[in-house]
C-alpha cells in the first residue's frame, strides 16, 4: 500500500525462457513478491530496445527491471550479452539526464529461480522507495 502516498510503478521486461518462467515459478511456489513490479514478456532480453526503457520512464514508471537468462544460458545464445551491453550504455545516458541509474536494473533470473525473482522485486521496490518518485520535467 502506498507509504507516504508514494506507490511506485516498476516495469519488468522479462525474457520468455528464463526470467518469465522464473516469475511463473515464484507463482507456483507462492513466493510473495512486490506488487509494484509489472511484467512485460519479451522473447529474449536481447529484444529490449532502449526505447522501451526510456518510454517506460517517461510514461510514469519509477524504475525498470530487465531480466534475462544467466550468461551462457540465453535461449538464443547471446541475446543476454547484448542486453548487458545496452544496459551499460543506457545507465550512462540516464546518468546524463540526471536520472539515478539505479532506477534501471539488470538481473539474470533462471527458470528455476522463483526465489530470486521475488527477492529482486522487493529489493527494487525498496530502492525505488528510497529514491522517491521519478519526476521528469515535461
Amino acid at each position, binding site marked *: 500500500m502506498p507509504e507516504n502516498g508514494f506507490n511506485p510503478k516498476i516495469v519488468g521486461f522479462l525474457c520468455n525462457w528464463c526470467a518469465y518462467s522464473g516469475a511463473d515459478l*515464484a507463482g507456483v511456489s507462492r513466493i510473495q513478491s512486490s506488487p509494484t513490479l509489472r511484467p512485460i514478456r519479451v522473447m529474449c532480453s536481447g529484444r529490449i530496445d532502449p526505447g522501451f526503457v526510456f518510454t517506460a520512464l517517461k510514461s510514469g514508471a519509477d524504475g525498470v527491471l530487465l531480466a534475462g537468462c544467466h550468461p551462457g544460458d540465453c535461449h538464443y545464445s547471446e541475446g543476454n550479452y547484448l542486453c548487458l551491453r545496452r544496459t551499460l550504455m543506457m545507465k550512462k545516458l540516464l546518468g546524463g539526464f540526471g536520472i539515478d541509474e539505479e532506477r534501471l536494473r539488470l538481473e539474470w533470473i533462471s527458470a528455476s529461480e522463483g526465489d530470486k525473482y521475488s527477492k529482486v522485486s522487493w529489493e527494487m521496490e525498496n530502492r525505488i522507495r528510497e529514491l522517491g518518485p521519478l519526476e521528469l520535467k515535461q
Partner: protein
Amino acid sequence: MSDEGKPKVGFYVCHCGTNIAGTVNVDEVSDYVSGLPGVSVSRNYQFMCSEPGQDLIEQDIREQGLDRVVVAACSPMMHELTFRGAVGRTGLNPYLFQMVNVREHCAWIHSDPAAATGKAIALCNAAIERVVHQEPLFASEAPIYPDTMVIGAGIAGIQAALDLAQGGNQVYLVERDSTIGGNMARFDKTFPTLDCSSCILTPKMVSVAQTENVQILSMSDIEEVSGYAGNFRVRVRKRARYVTDACTSCQDCIAVCPVTVPSIFDMGMASRTAIHKTFPQAIPNSYLIEKDERPPCWSACPIGQEAAGYVALIGDGRFAEAAQLIRKSNPLPVVCGRVCYHPCEEQCNRGFVEEPIAIQHLKRFALDWEAQHNGEVKVPEPPVRHSEKVAIVGSGPAGLACAHNLAQRGYQSTVYEREEVLGGMLALGIPAYRLPREQLQQDIDFIRRMGVEFQTGVAFGRDVTLEQLRETGYGAIFVATGAHRGIAMHVPGEDLDGVVDAVQFLHNKALGESQPVGRKVAVIGGGNCGIDVARTILREGAEEVTVVYRRTRVEMPCEEHEAIDAETEGIRFLFLRAPVEVLGKDGKVTGLRVIEMELGEPDDTGRRRPIPIEGSEHDLGFDMVVASIGQRADLDYLEDDPGAGEMQLSPWGTLDVDAETFATNLPGVFAGGDAVSGPATVVAAMGAGKRAAEAIDKYLRGQPLEGFETHQVPAEIPRVEGRPHRYSKPYEEIERVPRTQMPKLEAETRIGGWDEVELGFTEEQAVAEAQRCLHCGVCVDCYQCVDACKPGAVDHSMKDEVDHLDVGQIMVSTGYKQFDPSVIPQYGYGRLENVITGLEFERMLSSTGPTDGKVLIDGEAPRSVAILHCVGSRDENYNRYCSRVCCMYALKFAHLVRERTEAEVYQFYIDMRAFGKGYEEFYTRIMDEGTTMVRGKVAEVIEAPEGSPGKLLVKAEDTLLGVRREVPVDLVILCPAMVPSDGSEELRQLLHLSQSADGFLLERHPKLDPIGTASDGIYIAGCAQGPKDIPDTVAQASAAASKMLGWMARGEMTIDPIKAEVQEELCGGCRVCNALCPYNAISWVEDKKVARVEEALCKGCGICVAACPASAIVGAGFTDQQIYAEIGGLLAV
C-alpha cells in the same frame, strides 16, 4: 477489424476457482475493462480453460463479431495454446489473442487483494492496448526429419532407442563412454526384486546393438546443435578408438600392454590396461586404447621417439621389445643412446615429482642388451619399393637419418661423404670416450644393410657436382653438409703458433693425424665442443687444461654431466673471463690476456649477458690456446660448383629452405641439418633428415608438399595440469624415488686412454629406473598390441571423426554421477581405508568386479557393516533434494551383506522412504532378516581405538532413543547423492535447456510434462531430469519415445510465426543486424543494398529488431508498436 475500422475486443478474466478470485477482485477487473474503449464484451468466469469457458469466447466472437480477444488467467505457458485454439475455431486468426498472467504473476504472489487487483487491472489494460495492434499471423507447417537422436546410452537411452526404432527410422544413440549401459551396468542386483542387474540390462544392450536402424555412436561428444524443432543438425565428434571392428575381444593385447591405470568402471577398485574393454559385456564389443595428452618426452623429441613406450617395456623386463621399438623411429639408436642431448628428459613429467627419468641411459641399456643377446638385428622390409634413387650429400646425422627413412619408404639412396670416415660430426667431432667408434659403426652398418650405398672421399662441388648427380639419375638430392668450420676469436695474436681451432683439432684427432699438444692449455668456450676438446687434450698428455668461459657455470651451454665429468678428470674452469689477446714470444704462444666480466641483464637467449669490467685485464700463462666459440656451415662447394651455387642462402650464411618442406629454391634439391640450422644437436639434425625424407617421398610421388606426418616439436609441449595423466594422483602425492645414477669409469683410468666413460645400467638398475616412469598419455605408444593382435584390429593412427547428423527430435538421457563424499570430511571418505561408496560396493558385489563378488576388506569378510543414508542429499550444505533410491539400495546392501557374510548390519537413516511398488514390502522383508536400524544422521566416522571390535567407529545420535551411539564396524558404506553427470552442463548449454535449482534439467511442467522441455523437439528422461529409480527411468524413456513417435507419424511440426522481417523500404543498409543474428539468418541483398531475413532460419528472438537503428525490422508478435502500446497501457493505471 470491424466495419468501422474500430476493433471490437472481448475480455475474459478467469477465477481459476479461488486461485485467482481468492486474491484478485475479478468483478472489479471486468468492470474496469468493460469501460475501456474498443471493449465490446468483458466477463469473468469460473474456469476459462474449461469447455464452457472456451465456448463463451467462441460464442461471443460469433455473435458479437469480436475481432480481438484478451484472456486474463494463468501463465501463457499453461493455456495460451488452449485459448488460441478457441479463437481459431471461430475462423478468427488465433494471433489476434493476448493472454494476461494474473495467476502466477499476480494472485499467487501477492496477499494484499487491493494491490493484486490494482496490478491485475494494469496488466489487463496493457493487454487491451496491445491487442488492438496485433495482426493476423500464420503458423506454417514444416516437415520434420524422421531420424532421431538419443544422447546418453544408459538404461533410459537404450530403452528410448529401442522404442524409437520401432518407428522404422534411423535412431542415433550417442554415448560419451566407450560402452553403452550407463550406471546400471555397474550394479550387482536391483531392488526390490533382487534380480541381477546385468541379466536384465545386457539383453537390452545386445538388442539395441542388433537393431539395424539404431546406430550406436560411442566415445562421442556433441559439439554443436543448430536448426530448430523437427530440423536439428548436430555435430558429433567420435573420438578415435584405435581399435577397429575387427577386434574379437580375444584379450591378447591385454597381456602385452605395459601400462595399468585405475578402472573408472570399477570405481578405481581395480586396474586395467591402456588397451582395454570397459567390462566383459561392453557394447560396442571391441577394445579401445586410451590416449590422454601425448607423453611430453615424445612431443619434445625431434624424431618423435616413443620414449615412454620403451621405458615402459624396460620396466616390464621386455628389453628386446624395447630395443625393437627404439629402432622403429630412430635411425641412429646406438648413437642416441650415448650422445643425444635428450630434450625428452627436460620435458619429463617426473621432473615435477623429483627428477626426470634417465631416458637416454635406458635407451643405451636396451641397445646394449640387444647387442649382447640378440646377435644381428633383422633389417625391416619396406612395404613397397620405388625405382627412384636419391643422392644424399653428407653422412652426418641428418644425412644418415634421411637415408634410413628413405630406405624405410622403399627408396634406395647413395650417401656421398667428403672424408674417408662416415658419420660427419659423430665421427669427427665427438671423442671416442663418449661414442666408441664401433658403436657408431653398428648404426651405420644397419643403415648399409637397409640398402643404402656409401661413397667416401667424394667432396661435393669438387669431385661431384649437382649437375653430375642429376645426370647420374638421382630423382632428388638432399644436402646435409653440416657445420664443420670453427669461428675465430678475433683477438690479436690469433695467428701465433700454438693457437688451434677446436673443431679442427678434434677432426684431426679422429682421422688419426698427429698433432702436438701443449703442457698448459687454455680452451676458450664452454659448449660441448669445448669440453670435448679439453678432455681430449687431457688424454693426449697435457698437464693442465683450463676451460675459460665468459659467464658462470649455470650459463654454460654444455651438458651439466659433461662439465662434472671433465672436472672429475681434472679439467679446471675459469669463469667470468674473456680473452682479449693471445700473448706470444718468438711466434709461439706464451699466455692469454683476459678481462674479467660481470653478468648483466638477460639477453635474447635468456642467459645473463656478460659485461667486461674495465681495467680488470690480467695475463695468464699458457702454451696452447684452443678456440671453441662456435661453428659455422662450410659452404665452399657453392663456389666450386656453379650448379650448387644457385642455392639461396639465408641472412645467417646457411642454406635457405622452406621451414615446412626443407625444399631449397632448386627443384628436387632439399637440405637440412646444421648446414641449414647452423650448429645444433644430433637429434635435431636427425629430425630434419627424417622430415626431408618425407618431403622427398612426396616430391618423387608427385604429391603436393603438404600434410606432413613426421613429428615436429610443438612450440609448447602439451601436458595435463598437475598430474601426468587423468587417472594419476597429483604430482605432490606421488612417492619420491631418486633417479638411478649412471655408473662411470674411475677418473684415473679414464684419462689414461680412450675407454668409454659411462658404463651403462645393469638390468636391475634399468628396470628400477624405468619403473619410475609415470606413463604419461596412458597409452605410451609401445605398439606391442599391434603385433599381438592377430586380426590386425589395432590402428594407432586412427583419427577422431566428426559427423553432421540431421535429426528431427532429440532425447537427452545423460543420467547421473555419484556425489563425491570426500568433500564431507567427517565421514573420512578418501582418508579412511574402509569407508567406501555405494557404487564401489556395487562393484565389490558384482561377480565381474574386483573381488569377484565377495564382500572383503583387506582380504577378510567384515564382522560388521554400517550403511549411511543421505550422504550429500537432504543436506542444506550440499544438496537439498532427496536422491530417492538410497533407502532402497541401502536395504538391498543389507540383504546382500548378510547373504554373503556373517556381518552385523547397521543402517543410519534420517527417514525411511519406500514409495514405489513393492518397496514397502521389501523394507519389511529386510527388517525381518534382522538389520539394525538407527534413526539419526551420522556425526562422524573415525578410526577405531586400539582394542575395539571394529576398524572404524561410527558416531551418531539415535533420535528415536535420544541417546548417542558409537558403533564399531569394519566397513562403512556411504550412500552418496545423485548429481548430474559430467558434461551434462555443457550439453545443457549447447541445447539451450534450462536447469532446475538442483542442477538437473528442467522439464516443461513438473507434473503435466515431466519429459518435455521448453524447447520443442527436445525431451528429457531418467536421472538427467532428476534422481529416480530404474522403473521410473524406463517409463520416462518410453514416454519420451512415444511422444517423438507421435510427431514422426504426423510428419510435420508447426513453426511459430514469431519471426523478424525487414521492411526493405526502410532499411538503410547499415548491416548492423547481419553480424548480430545468432543464427546467421540475415543475409545481404547486394543489388538492393538491403538486409533480408531468411524465414526458415529465424527463431524470433528479436535481437535484430531491437538493434535496427532505422526500425526497419518488424518482429512479428512482438512489434515495437505492440510493446509500446503495452508499456503505455501498463503505466496508465
